[in-house]
């Protein structure tokens, strides 16, 4: 764990779960694996708070536990899964994807499960139906069956999966029957055979509309009802979580399709989209390329709305194969030609494009030209760089040193004699894509950390003003609910002075900007991380 990653984890935990969980989490990340007693002792927090924090983290899948170093007889050890904490940055993207694929119902289902970590199917359906009913006009309500069908669709396409079983045996017996899993190997959810099997639940009805006057009673009744209802529905101990890997595969496919449409044109991107859709279920998660598809199959699977004739399809496919980006490759000639999508190569090209874009925006287009040259030609001497890039010697030197000082370009020594004498050694400039990608990934983590800290600072600076505006909004809302006159409303509104209003407006603008920036940096993080993971998987 690098320092920047730990800092970002801490900020994310603090934003979503509060200071206590942040303290427990960062300490656990820094120490690796710890028992409960050691953790409580070192963080100097009361034991019950530490327990609650660990419960929250386990609920959200960010902390795993298992038998420790002393074996099954010793105390249980906990460790934090940092990758899972970073996923919290991407939650809006997951929810938006669910909305684009399965509508508002899908969006709310994914949002509820992300908020609570794990949920049973019946409780999700009820909560989502209630929320949808709340937003519908009077008299209408959302039927449970619609929500159930949206949930089933999400499970069928593997966007939701069952949580791996908790290791403890039945709660009735005192002793733990099954042995605890070793802390270093958490159980994979996919190893469970029923991972994507929907339980049979006995759930009929409609969403209930919550009246604002009965809020307190409704909550109590709902709470009592929920407890009795869950066990009646028949899916008591089956919890569902979001399958992040599936979402990531979807994002990767989206990135490839949009790259093809930018580089070539819309029709070729539709062809690539069809190919990826066909190989969704057959391609394993870390495969380097999809299953081979024949041109005949692709033609049959193409939607008629694209209006691509068979010879046109062949031309497009050969165009895609010849493209230097190498998104699509030809692996055979049977069936009109066997084609695959080169996933790992596509990711590498996307990462390379990201690196080049960063250099271009930071140092100018001529430095970007030198950078691209070095990526392509691997090793070049100083003189060769000047010649190939067609940049005057002095400026080329300046740019090279700037890139060198930022560690984007490295010097490689190649000796002519075994004694490495300086006068008889070649010094070549080079760019290594993988280490540079890692460097940029760390920069991105630092960037997001800086953005979050700045946002917290801005909020803290204007805390008094924000609280005042919230109070006034609450007063206005209550006045409007009880039907006050316009004069009273304007009087309350005038309690905020004009300069204060301007200050609030600029504060909102800043915070929106910082939040959008976080979302955008997260896209870069996703691309670079996918690329780095793909290189590790192929080893």
């Amino acid at each position, binding site marked *: 764990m690098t320092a920047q990653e730990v800092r970002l984890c801490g900020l994310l935990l603090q934003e*979503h779960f*509060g200071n206590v969980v942040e303290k427990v989490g960062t300490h656990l990340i820094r120490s690796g694996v710890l028992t409960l007693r050691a953790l409580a002792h070192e963080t100097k927090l009361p034991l019950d708070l530490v327990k609650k924090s660990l419960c929250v983290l386990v*609920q959200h899948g960010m902390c795993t536990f298992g038998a420790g170093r002393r074996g099954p007889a010793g105390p249980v050890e906990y460790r934090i899964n940092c990758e899972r904490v970073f996923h919290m940055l991407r939650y809006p993207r997951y929810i938006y994807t669910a909305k684009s694929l399965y509508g508002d119902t899908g969006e709310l289902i994914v949002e509820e499960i*992300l908020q609570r970590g794990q949920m049973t199917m019946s409780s999700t359906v009820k909560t989502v139906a209630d929320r949808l009913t709340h937003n519908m006009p009077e008299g209408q309500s959302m039927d449970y069956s619609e929500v159930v069908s949206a949930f089933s669709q999400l499970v069928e396409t593997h966007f939701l999966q069952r949580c791996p079983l908790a290791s403890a045996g039945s709660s009735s017996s005192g002793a733990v029957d099954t042995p605890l899993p070793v802390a270093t190997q958490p159980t994979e959810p996919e190893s469970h055979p029923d991972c994507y099997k929907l339980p049979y639940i006995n759930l009929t009805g409609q969403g209930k509309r919550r009246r604002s006057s009965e809020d307190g009673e409704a909550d109590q009744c709902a709470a009592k009802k929920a407890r009795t209802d869950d066990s009646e529905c028949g899916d008591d101990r089956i919890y569902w979580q979001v399958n992040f890997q599936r979402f990531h595969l979807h994002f990767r496919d989206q990135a490839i399709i949009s790259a093809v449409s930018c580089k070539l044109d819309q029709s070729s991107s539709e062809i690539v989209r069809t190919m990826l859709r066909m190989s969704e279920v057959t391609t394993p998660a870390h495969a380097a390329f999809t299953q081979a598809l024949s041109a005949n199959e692709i033609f049959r699977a193409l939607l008629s709305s694209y209006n691509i004739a068979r010879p046109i399809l062949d031309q497009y496919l050969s165009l895609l194969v010849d493209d230097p980006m190498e998104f699509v490759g030809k692996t055979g000639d049977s069936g009109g030609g066997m084609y695959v999508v080169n996933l790992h190569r596509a990711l590498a090209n996307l990462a390379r494009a990201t690196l080049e874009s960063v250099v271009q925006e930071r140092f100018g287009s001529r430095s970007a030209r030198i950078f691209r040259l070095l990526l392509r030609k691997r090793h070049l001497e100083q003189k060769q760089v000047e010649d190939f890039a067609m940049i005057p010697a002095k400026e080329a030197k300046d740019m090279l040193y700037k890139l060198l000082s930022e560690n984007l370009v490295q010097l490689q020594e190649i000796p002519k004699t075994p004694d490495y004498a300086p006068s008889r050694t070649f010094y070549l400039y080079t760019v290594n894509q993988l280490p540079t990608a890692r460097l940029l990934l760390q920069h991105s983590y630092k960037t997001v950390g800086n953005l979050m800290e700045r946002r917290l600072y801005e909020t803290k600076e204007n805390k008094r003003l924000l609280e005042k505006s919230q109070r006034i909004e609450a007063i206005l809302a209550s006045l409007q609910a009880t039907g006050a006159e316009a004069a009273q409303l304007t009087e309350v509104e005038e309690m905020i002075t004009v300069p204060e209003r301007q200050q609030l407006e600029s504060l909102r603008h800043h915070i929106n900007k910082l*939040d959008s920036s976080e979302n955008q940096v997260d896209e870069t993080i996703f691309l670079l991380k996918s690329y780095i993971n793909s290189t590790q998987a192929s080893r």
Partner: protein
Amino acid sequence: MAGRGRGQLTFSVEIVGIGKGENLPPSSVQPTPLFPPLAQKPVPLQTGEEAEYMLALKQEFRGAMKTLPFYIRPAAPKKGQFGVKDELCHKHGFAYMVAESPAVPKQPKQPRVDKEEIIRKLETLEQKEEDGSSDEEEGEKKKPEEEEAEGEEGYDEEEFEDETDYIMSYFDNGDEFGGDSDDNIDEAIY
């Protein structure tokens, strides 16, 4: 590799591109500034329906998390200071404790010590009085003596011979009344 002098570099600088006698930029003697001036203006953020919707989702999510039970706030004021009242405090809230009288500081140790001394003194006095006085009087003396032990070191015998609250001289026994009248019968007796 051992160089011929401290200022020698391990490689000849011409190869890297710095010519002889060329002006090099001055070496920096301080860390780079915290907010360096940017050479190029950064690209503006993505805008559009998708970006705005995701922004709204992000802010709503953040707000929602603060209301859920997963957001753990640090504990209430320290426990244990007020002993049994902790349970009552949790049942009725902090206001219960405020309604109670403010915490009385512990009694300083000193009167305790005095108390023991006084009790010892009383016991010795008891034993002295055991010789002469009745049991009742002893018992009665002990009680008022113990009551007085907290504040006063001695007690007023004049006040506590019997179990009354009044100074003994308040009551006139009448013993002295008739004593003087034998000498002077001329004066009337009222």
